[in-house]
């Protein structure tokens, strides 16, 4: 088996979720999702439509750039989408731009996210977080949300978010459906494991643990009880030699994903 680092297994795992012809957006400070998109487009999903930074259509940056919401990310785009009159019209209409890759300061057992405040009083927060930005929309618009988290710990994966700044499965079960909100969070890829949401209860469920991590370790690092799959918990498929080569030599030669994942 090849040598790889944690950002590389996260990239390969996210990339495998994209199908040819899917339409995906990335947000701010999202090196791993951007690398995963670039990897998928160079391997199994050349027709993956990428709206870089929700603005530049099908760009060709020569590598993962220092910002995922700035030039030169959108180098060689076929179109710049004006954010107010283009992007949000396509995104609010369910026909397009179905996948949004995003991170959250807190994510709870039902996939609700918090990027607003830590503490019990919104108007007098203990910590003011950056704000919900596009996620507050994407959570309610029936998008397939791909969450990623490079620091799986009980403070970021919590039983209940302090403040719900983006809708996941709300209180679970069919609550989301009753509000007419359509699809929601689909997967959570962390530095330790891959998780999804059990179809009935909508509770977060372990899908696989990365090689080297254990189920106990993942449970310990999670602020609530994870549902387990039937039978043994499988290992996450590691990246192939070719995927590792592409990531290191072509897609992210500056190691921005490694920095994001805290890889020394």
């Amino acid at each position, binding site marked *: 088996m090849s040598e790889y680092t944690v950002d590389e297994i996260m990239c390969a795992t996210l990339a495998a979720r994209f199908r040819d012809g899917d339409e995906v957006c990335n947000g701010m400070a999202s090196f791993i999702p951007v690398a995963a998109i670039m990897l998928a487009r160079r391997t199994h999903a050349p027709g993956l439509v990428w709206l870089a930074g929700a603005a530049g259509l099908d760009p060709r940056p020569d590598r993962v750039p220092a910002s995922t919401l700035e030039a030169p990310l959108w180098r060689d785009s076929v179109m710049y989408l004006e954010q107010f*009159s283009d992007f*949000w019209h396509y995104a609010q209409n369910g026909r397009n731009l179905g996948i949004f890759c995003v991170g959250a300061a807190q994510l709870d057992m039902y996939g609700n996210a918090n990027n607003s405040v830590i503490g019990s009083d919104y108007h007098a927060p203990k910590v003011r977080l950056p*704000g*919900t930005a596009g996620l*507050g929309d994407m959570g309610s618009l029936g998008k397939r949300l791909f969450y990623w988290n490079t620091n799986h710990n009980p403070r970021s994966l919590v039983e209940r978010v302090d403040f*719900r700044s983006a809708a996941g499965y709300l209180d679970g079960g069919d609550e989301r459906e009753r509000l007419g909100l359509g699809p929601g969070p689909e997967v959570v890829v962390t530095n330790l494991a891959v998780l999804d949401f059990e179809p009935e209860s909508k509770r977060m469920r372990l899908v696989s643990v990365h090689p080297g991590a254990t189920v106990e370790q993942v449970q310990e690092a999670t602020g609530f009880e994870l549902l387990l799959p039937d039978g043994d918990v499988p290992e996450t498929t590691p990246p192939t030699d070719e995927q590792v080569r592409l990531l290191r030599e072509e897609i992210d030669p500056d190691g921005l994903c490694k920095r994001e994942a805290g890889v020394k």
Partner: protein
Amino acid sequence: MSKVKTLEEAVGLVSDGDVVALQNMATQAAPMALVRELIRQEKRDLGLVCLVGGMAVDWLAAAGAIDRFIGAAVSMETFGLCQQYRKAVEEGRVRVEELSETALNARLAAGARNLPSLPTRGLLGTDLIDVNENLKTFEDPFTGETLVACRALVPDVALVHAHRADEHGNVQIEPTIVWPDLGIFPKAARKTIVTVEEIVDSEVLRRNPDRTVLPGFRVDAVVEVPYGAHPTSLHPRYGYDARFHLAWTKVSRDDDATKEFLDAYVRAPATQADYLAAVGGSERLIEITRT
């Protein structure tokens, strides 16, 4: 009639207490020369409207110029959280009306079109509706669906920076990403102040009228300020100044160091030329123009 003004005259159009719609993605295209002038003129009790606020919000919070923020996020992206803004919110000096992007756009579009509100599906199921008196759920009269009504927002003034304009205030951009800051802020605001890299003859605009994004009839003042977005970027002319952002992130956790920094880069330079010399002069500007 010419709308060309000095920075001092243009910012004189902003009154204490105004709601200011400020162009400002995380590290992009903020009218920083206008922001510095707001601080020099010691404006107070301003409300800021931003899609994503960056260093401009941090500076204005540090200078005590703002008491409320309306927008979707405040972040300098890879340079981290805006620490002075964050501290001001946590200490109760700045109140935050946090909106999703569609809710902010709906509030501004309603303001632009002289409607009392416009709806969105964004934010349904979140707590952000409950803490905001400008958002209310309602039942659509045609389908019975639950939607979020977003009350019209009419900023007192919009501040934007772009590539060029003529003396009448017709504003033109080079091919670049357009955020709501240019797309909707000036349409909603009562007044608009524009800084541009260069003021050109109208004949230059006539060659590419499709690149004119803001009609002069909506512009109250236009000021020529080369590198007026520094340290943020103005794609495709110049990139953001990473070194300057890093310098700010180093000082902004400390109030004394913050004050020294703002004295050196905001209060001391009398002109834009002085400011550009203070941040590294032509050598530095050539570096950010290459990136």
